[in-house]
């Protein structure tokens, strides 16, 4: 109220000494500057594009792209439209990001635990890994692994670290199970198993809250999630067909081959982001005071229970926000694929820009796609963060 009174005492003259006038002037000036800049740039762009004979707008999306994309999750050829080609790139970005997020998280958690292990040797080795990979440019690592992949021997003399698994300058080739109707049943069984496991855990928690007694949780969950698909496999006649790749003159027949670009990108992303996640996990574990662990033990909780019920829930709250930003970094960093030619979204859009000259539209699409992905990950992780947060 004092503030309002003071304001009344100030002369309400139309001068720059009046705070309200100053605020209005400043904002109007900012707005005018932004509008003027946009107008100027817009007219320049329209003029320049007209001069170069480029029709602005997204009409080019329905034209034939005329270039082939190496790897695709949907049917695609050089005859496909630009729209379809861009979708292929988007799916590749999502695929490489998803795989790298899972692998980097696993690696990071292992490294983080190793960093706080009571074992001196393990601690030092993991610290060395983190220092080296965190302090080297990601692009350098990508380029290095790509050169490694390209310099591998041709398929005829491919390295074979394990029977049926090949490393060559064509990429990483490994056997896949031949498709059998039983696999469909296994997928269905796994879905049912996961659903039943969730329902069982809910029931177990309600039982625990009502009676204070615990039902066993770990083994029934494991039995439902792993056991049901295994039963389906047995019931389906336990098919064990493997499509093992065989060497031909210039390439492999059978199995699945991942391109050198994809393998190099994945190795580099996982090693780089994994080092950062390792540090986050280490910090999260160390941030939970040792008093918490000792208190849990004093209450009679076993080590596993102390870790699961006392330490991890608190560590997770510290870990999740920085982990989210690492996931976002990973998705954005996957765009470095453009340098080694993995057909991710930036890469295929860049080709489209070079062919059509529609640079403004192309960059707009790139920004739109990454903003949407970033926003989705943020929303999901915020939801998860709220879920594991303190319940008030």
């Amino acid at each position: 109220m004092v503030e309002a009174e003071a304001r009344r005492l100030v002369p309400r003259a139309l001068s720059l000494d009046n705070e309200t006038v100053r605020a209005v002037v400043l904002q109007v000036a900012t707005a005018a500057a932004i509008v003027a800049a946009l107008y100027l740039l817009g007219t320049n762009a329209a003029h320049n594009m007209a001069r170069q004979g480029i029709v602005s707008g997204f009409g080019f999306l329905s034209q034939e792209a005329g270039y082939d994309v190496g790897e695709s999750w949907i049917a695609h050829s050089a005859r496909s439209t630009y729209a379809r080609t861009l979708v292929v790139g988007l799916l590749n970005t999502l695929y490489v990001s998803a795989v790298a997020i899972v692998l980097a998280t696993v690696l990071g958690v292992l490294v983080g635990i190793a960093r706080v292990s009571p074992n001196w040797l393990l601690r030092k080795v993991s610290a060395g890994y983190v220092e080296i990979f965190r302090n080297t440019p990601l692009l350098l690592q990508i380029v290095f692994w790509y050169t490694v992949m390209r310099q591998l021997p041709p398929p005829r003399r491919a390295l074979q670290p394990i029977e049926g698994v090949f490393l060559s300058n064509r990429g990483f080739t490994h056997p896949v199970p031949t498709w059998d109707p039983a696999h469909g049943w296994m997928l269905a069984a796994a879905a049912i198993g996961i659903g039943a496991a969730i329902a069982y855990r809910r029931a177990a928690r309600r039982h625990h809250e009502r009676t204070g007694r615990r039902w066993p949780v770990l083994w029934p969950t494991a039995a439902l999630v792993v056991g049901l698909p295994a039963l389906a496999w047995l019931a389906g006649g336990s098919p064990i067909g493997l499509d093992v790749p065989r060497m031909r003159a210039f390439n492999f027949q059978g199995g699945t081959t991942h391109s050198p670009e994809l393998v190099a990108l994945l190795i580099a992303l996982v090693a780089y982001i994994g080092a950062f996640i390792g540090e986050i996990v280490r910090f999260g574990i160390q941030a939970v005071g040792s008093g918490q662990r000792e208190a849990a033990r004093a209450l009679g909780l076993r080590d596993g229970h102390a870790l699961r019920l006392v330490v991890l829930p608190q560590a997770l709250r510290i870990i999740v926000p920085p982990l989210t930003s690492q996931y976002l970094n990973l998705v954005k960093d996957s765009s470095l694929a453009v340098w080694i030619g993995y057909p991710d979204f930036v890469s295929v859009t860049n080709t489209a820009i070079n062919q059509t000259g529609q640079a403004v539209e192309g960059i707009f699409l790139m920004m739109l796609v990454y903003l949407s992905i970033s926003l989705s990950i943020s929303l999901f992780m915020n939801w998860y963060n709220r879920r594991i947060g303190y319940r008030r």
Partner: protein
Amino acid sequence: MTGGLPMAAPAQRPPLDRVGALRWLRVNLFSGPLNTLLTLVTFGAIALVVPAVLRWAVVDAVWRSADPAVCRAAAGACWAVVAEKHRLMLFGLYPHAEHWRPVAATVLYVAAVALTCWPGSWRRIVLVPLWTVTVAVFLVLMLGGALGLSLVETREWGGLPLTVVVFTATVMMALPLGIILALGRRSRLPLIRTAAIGLIEIVRGVPLVTVLFCAAVVFPLFLPPGWDVDKLVRVLVAMGIFYGCYFAEVIRGGLQAIPKGQHEAAASLGLSYWQSTRKIVLPQALRVVIPGLMNHVISVFKNSTLVIVVGLFDMLYATTAAIADPLWIAFYTEGYLFVGAIYFLGCWAMSRYSQFIERRLARGRSY
């Protein structure tokens, strides 16, 4: 307590495995069955890898030879590729006869950085002239066209000096921009706040590559016909804006950490918004955020490699080009290890320095 209790028996030495090296081994390596197993596995891996790497990198290595055939005959690393190609790796396409200029410029730059790192130099009267002179001399040396030096256009710049230019210019632009954006985001004026939030969130949501494409490909479309801005300058401004938005978020954290009483005390002394911001709030806020900013400064150094995507010839691109020579391509590992080591040393030194600063700033502060 030198005498102890009058009746105390003479102290006994602890058992041998509870003191000294044996105790250390017991606690740190063999405290239980799992720990022992981990030790043995890790040690086994080290014993397998380290001697092999040493034999490759040192014992069997070829250090100097103009002939790649010598390397191919040897079993070890071919450091000769670095000896042969180091000029291309370090200076890119810069005219060969003028290489003393990037060398002198880089040495001057490193000396200026070293001086700036010394806390005794943290005074306006030292830093402002130091960096004005350093930047001016650096540009004159690199660009030439004055003092009898031949003109070398930015198109021909490359290697380590270009990396230095990208890194330094980005940090120098991003810091003031970050401060302005952070203040803008906390402004009471809705329009300015919205504009700052919009820019920060959009830029932080997209990859650096797209921002660089914007600068290299799209921006010329927005210029009036006949205008031209040097590509290096365009890329530097783009990097500056990109990292300005990241710096802004760190600085905002520092601004939020300043107690409200500081603003109110400044206002009651009759200081205007800009006076209190410049003299009271920012000095305290920036002090708090130095470690956080250092993380992003390290990231600028690493991501300066991304300029190769728009065709600038930095150290990474120069190395890629150097080892693309079919005679030497087989020894790419040595080439990348060499530049990797330069990047690693830079980042590692910065992170160590950041820890030193953190300890120094924590001194004599209770909150």
